[in-house]
């Protein structure tokens, strides 16, 4: 039996909620007036499923909510819904995300602006629910925009940004927001819920234009093209990704104007970097314990700071290079692994080193693998990261060409 649909809340004032990252995302789904969302349970993403279902059951949200028979169908459903002009939301975690991989790949190829969350989770086996970024990062080469959130507030803000940027005709690419399992998806924080009016100002209705799959607009999507057309199609995606950086800057400026949040740069969140000689670099919630460490280290007189990356794709190379070149050493903390990669480093480590390669003045880059499977980054670990980075900055250690595993038992 269908639930009774109560009238939508009429009051439109900014409110505060104590909400998990997942609940904050559900609020964003409501505010964005999403048409279709597809769901299939897997921790930690399923927090969004539950939060959205609750909003629907309470009559606060009107969205076509489709529970699929698996992640592959789940992502196919929103891909097709998007092609017929629906604003969509979807998400998964860990190996569930991988089960949807075919649909994930074609969604980017088709330039359909699906917005997803990837509730970051270790890839089973062994069974582990905690956060690891390899699920999101597996799609890094496919044309998905990949932002990472630090807080529940940022999760909601990034979701609103995601529809705005992804659906922009210059971009028209899918977005997958990285949310650290447990620390963000399942931890409640104070979240400011913006007014519907402000969101409507920020987020125009979704319009696919002449790409809309509709009987009145007969088109064929994704014919067999072989080598005759394929490179041109990839080039189009490359160009769209190049444009995304500027579109994110535009959206970020508007967002800041309307909601007063988002910091100076859409791509980098700098913490105590003004006079820093050594900085940590990473993404997601690992910034939180590292900031605690920085405050402690500052009291001891160390010039140390943090640069948190907010968008992994597009990789804002110029800005990142310009920023990191100011420091003597950068300790890149990867909550991921890339077995057999250069210097056996993490994904972020090698991206950063690659970006810095052509710089005349560049910092020493030290790699750290930490917090895998959701292992907490405790202060002794942060201390070790600092000491190794500091040593590299002083030239004491050939630490730059290596990568250290932190907090792992021998």
């Amino acid at each position, binding site marked *: 039996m269908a639930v009774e649909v109560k009238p939508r809340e009429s009051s439109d004032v900014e409110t505060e909620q104590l909400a998990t990252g997942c609940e904050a995302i559900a609020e964003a789904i409501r505010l964005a007036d999403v048409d279709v969302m597809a769901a299939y349970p897997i921790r930690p993403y399923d927090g969004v499923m539950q939060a959205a279902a609750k909003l629907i059951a309470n009559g606060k949200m009107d969205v076509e909510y489709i529970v699929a028979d698996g992640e592959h169908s789940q992502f196919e459903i929103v891909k097709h819904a998007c092609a017929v002009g629906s604003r969509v939301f979807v998400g998964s975690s860990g190996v569930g995300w991988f089960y949807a991989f075919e649909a994930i790949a074609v969604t980017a*190829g*088709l*330039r*359909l602006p699906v917005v997803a969350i990837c509730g970051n989770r270790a890839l089973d086996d062994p069974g582990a629910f905690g956060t690891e970024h390899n699920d999101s990062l597996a799609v890094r080469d496919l044309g998905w925009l990949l932002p990472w959130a630090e807080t529940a507030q940022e999760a909601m803000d990034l979701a609103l940004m995601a529809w705005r940027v992804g659906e922009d005709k210059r971009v*028209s690419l899918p977005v997958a927001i990285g949310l650290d399992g447990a620390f963000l998806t399942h931890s409640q924080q104070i979240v400011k819920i913006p007014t519907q009016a402000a969101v409507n100002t920020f987020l125009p209705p979704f319009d696919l234009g*002449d*790409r809309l799959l509709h009987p009145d607009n*007969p*088109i*064929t*999507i*994704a*014919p067999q*093209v*072989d*080598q*005759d*057309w394929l490179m*041109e*199609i990839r*080039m*189009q995606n490359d*160009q*769209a990704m190049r444009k995304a950086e500027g579109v994110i800057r535009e959206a970020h400026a508007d967002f800041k104007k309307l909601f007063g949040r988002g910091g100076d740069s859409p791509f980098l969140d700098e913490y105590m970097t003004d006079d820093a000689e050594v900085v940590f670099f990473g993404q997601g919630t690992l910034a939180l314990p590292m900031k605690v460490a920085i405050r402690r280290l500052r009291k001891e007189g160390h010039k140390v700071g943090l640069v948190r990356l907010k968008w992994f794709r597009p990789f804002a190379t110029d800005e990142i290079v310009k920023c990191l070149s100011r420091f003597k050493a950068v300790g890149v903390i990867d909550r991921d692994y890339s077995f057999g990669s250069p210097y056996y480093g993490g994904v972020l480590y090698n991206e950063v080193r690659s970006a810095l390669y052509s710089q005349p003045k560049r910092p020493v880059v030290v790699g750290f693998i930490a917090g895998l499977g959701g292992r907490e980054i405790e202060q002794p670990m942060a201390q070790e990261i600092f000491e190794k980075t500091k040593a590299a900055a002083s030239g004491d250690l050939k630490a730059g060409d290596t990568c250290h595993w932190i907090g792992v038992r021998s």
Partner: protein
Amino acid sequence: MSETETSITIEVVYRGIFQKTLAQRICRSIVLAARKRGHTGTAFARYGDSPERNGVPAKQFAVVASNDIELESSMAKYEPAVVDVSIAVDDTLVKGVESWAWYGRQPIWKPVRKDGFVLVTSEKTPDEVLAQTDTALRPYTLGIVPGGASFAGLWVFKDDHTDYRVLGALAKIEPQWVRLEDVKALIKEQTKDDGAVASAQYGYDNTKLRAVEAGEGTSGHEKLQFDKPGWTTMRPGIIVDARKPGERNPFYKKYGARTMRPVVNFDTCIKCTMCWLDCPDECFEVTPEGHYEVVYEACIGCGICAQVCPVKDCIVMVDELKFEDNKDKWDFWKKDHDGYNKWFESKSGVSADPKKLVPSSPTTNANPGANPTTAGGDE
């Protein structure tokens, strides 16, 4: 061919599925025969032709080189840009090769180098074949290998020795690369059959060569060439315009798949709709009087209409090489009834008047499944 040539490239143009095994056997045998005198080589099918579709023109290739270094320049390719010899194993292929959308319709000699060879298996004379071949832009030699089109099959290959005759013909025109004795030795090894070896000799002895000058051939075939779009001109999102209702695909016309075409006797048509209903390609258009006329640009010549037609000799399948154009014929019948019927009789070999009980005689190159060719060295 000079002594300095370091490789030879040969293509086999064939009817998809029906002749795939045949083409493969020819290409492999070319390399294996050349191997007998110390050459090396490669044989491959054009990747984009797969999955092959019934009758749609496809290509396979053999490259023979004097050594591995020379061979490398012909490897890691889908198809060679230039070939020394093009072998068409069905003479209706000389009307042009249209393999897939955007490929266009290409003259059979298109990749053949100046003074190269076009070998065609046919029961017709060189001049008859040339009359249906696109106007040559550069001189080449046309060779007719005796025998009708072999539809020996894909899964079960009913060998009619077309492959051996073709290899014999090749040994005649390119002895530097493929020697008759090597071909014969190879066939003997493979088949232990002297009849098969004799077929190679037959192809060698009986292939008719005819020099073709630039300008010879027909200009009657449709030009079908397309420019491929660039990334700035393509629609984003892997989107192409769909065909409107009733509109036929201008980028892929399919008639190049045809070896026989249906010809309709409008006098005896009872307007039963069967052809129109059962045509898998929706080729039939309803005329103002309720007849059904074939749109030849869309017809692949599958013959289903002729099979389902309940009236004897109302739809007759006729050798495609007897026709110059793809024009619709109902207008012809409407304007010149007797003229059309004469035309119908001359093409189909059956009477247009149902009261005349003229027994229908099988046409040349008739439905190969029902009437397999016996021409060639195995006589």
